[in-house]
């Protein structure tokens, strides 16, 4: 019973095809990755970094009067808003175009071009399970071995 079960799983695994939603999710993740600042962890994350602002020599030779300076932390708390919050706020306060959202260019009038997901040269073929493009049997092999359904999107 158990062996028949796993046999069936293998069969379905072979015929597995990414559905449309999964393909879109993959495409969106790829675009989001292009926006990332770092792909690794903070190398000093294990250190307790001094929260103190580094001291730089004051540019003012003879300060006319003693000024209270506020820390970087103060401004972090004072102006704390995420990008998403700011876009939302803008959409309600400056809802009439032109604004940040309306300035985005529309899609190109030219048809999309397709490139091999492995070597980057123009491609004519589409991988049936995942929709990626490939240019040759060799590249398809590499694609199946390395990415294709091995990615979980």
């Amino acid at each position, binding site marked *: 019973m158990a062996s028949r079960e796993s046999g069936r799983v293998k069969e379905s695994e072979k015929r597995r095809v990414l559905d449309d939603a999964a393909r879109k999710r993959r*495409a969106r993740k*790829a*675009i989001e*990755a*292009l*926006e990332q*600042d*770092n*792909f*690794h*962890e*903070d*190398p*000093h994350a294990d*250190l307790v*970094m001094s929260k103190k*602002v*580094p001291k*730089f*020599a*004051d*540019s003012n030779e003879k300060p*006319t009067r003693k000024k209270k*300076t506020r*820390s*970087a*932390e103060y*401004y*972090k708390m*004072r*102006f*704390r*808003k*995420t*990008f998403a919050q*700011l876009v939302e*706020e*803008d959409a309600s*306060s*400056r809802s009439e175009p*032109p*604004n*940040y959202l309306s*300035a*985005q*260019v*529309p*899609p*190109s*009038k*030219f048809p*999309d*071009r397709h*490139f091999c997901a*492995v*070597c*980057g*040269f*123009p491609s004519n073929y589409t991988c049936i399970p995942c929709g990626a493009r490939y240019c040759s049997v060799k590249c398809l092999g590499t694609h199946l071995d*390395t990415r294709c359904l091995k990615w979980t999107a």
Partner: protein
Amino acid sequence: MSETSCYILDNGGYTAKVGFSTTNEPKIVPNCIMKAKSERRRPFIASQIDECRDASGLFYILPFQKGFLINWDTQKTVWDFIFSKECCPVNFSEAPLIITEPLFNFSSIQEAMTEIFFEEYECQSLLRINATDLAEYHYRKLNSNESTVVVDSGYSFTYIVPYIKGKKYKDGIRRIDVGGKVLTNHLKEIISYRQLNVMDETYVINQVKEDSCFVSQDFMADMEIAKTRGSENTIVKDYVLPDYTTIRRGYLRDVVKPDEDLEQQTLRLNNERFSIPELLFRPSDVGIPQMGIPEAIMEAIGACPEENKESLLENIVLYGGCTLFPGFRDRVYNEVRAFALDHYDVNVTLADNPLTYPWEGGKFLFKDPEFYSFCMTKEEYEEEGKALAFERFDI
């Protein structure tokens, strides 16, 4: 009042360009804090990175996200550094400040800018302005033209901004969400998949991009060349990576011969050399459903009044880090020329110094007899508050 010099800070998402109007050129400093694997004692703030012996695996902390100032603690730390003796010292009670902000900057960020410069840095006179405004002023000073299309292809995105008689025509402004950051990240991704995992090496791969990439004038023809083997392939090169003992910055060279003994690690670059900058011209190549730069220029001009189109096409000016790729100007010119009606002239100018063009525009603007009428003073801020800043500055 009129001061003899003005402090100009073009506060970009990747680098800040800073200096007094009396100096020839600004300092260009990274607008970020970096942490190195090799030095656990301290973070490197802005140009302090020059003191870092080994820049492999640098970790970035940036004040800007998607082109907007989001992380104020990071920005404050970088500004404190910039205004200190270590970088470009200033006394804001003596010199007016011109500082740039992104187009359509969100109103709460604008308020924060006004507050921090009047209250924390105690500016006497402040001018908050878009970098494209300074670039347009620069261009108009030199050309005495009526209308201009400013193309700013920077780190976070590319903006196309039409100006008519010195005023930005907001209905014509267009943004493409592709800039230097997307290009570097895409190059990192394909090198990591094809040959060597460099996902942690943004700093180095950004240099690879700067040293190796060019804008193709005939993309499909270059793809054919890149497919050929041997001496026919004039595109394929090797990039020698820095090892931080003998080489601090990598370089591009002819392909390493099989019998050649080279100690350093290399990357093979072939179609990567031109398919990366190609994203500025065809964002859809990586699935970003947007027009490329030349098409977006036509779209921006198309949104402007009919009577200004001729002058706009004759005065297209390009600046920003991405415009430094060899072939960038020619490709923009050729495509815009092909799109535009035959009876129009098309002129496309690459700024002499694409990184500092707006900063230099600030120098010209400071000499404008009306300069102080564009500024807001500390007294005005104290009397009328932040609301006045929204009236005075057209961000």
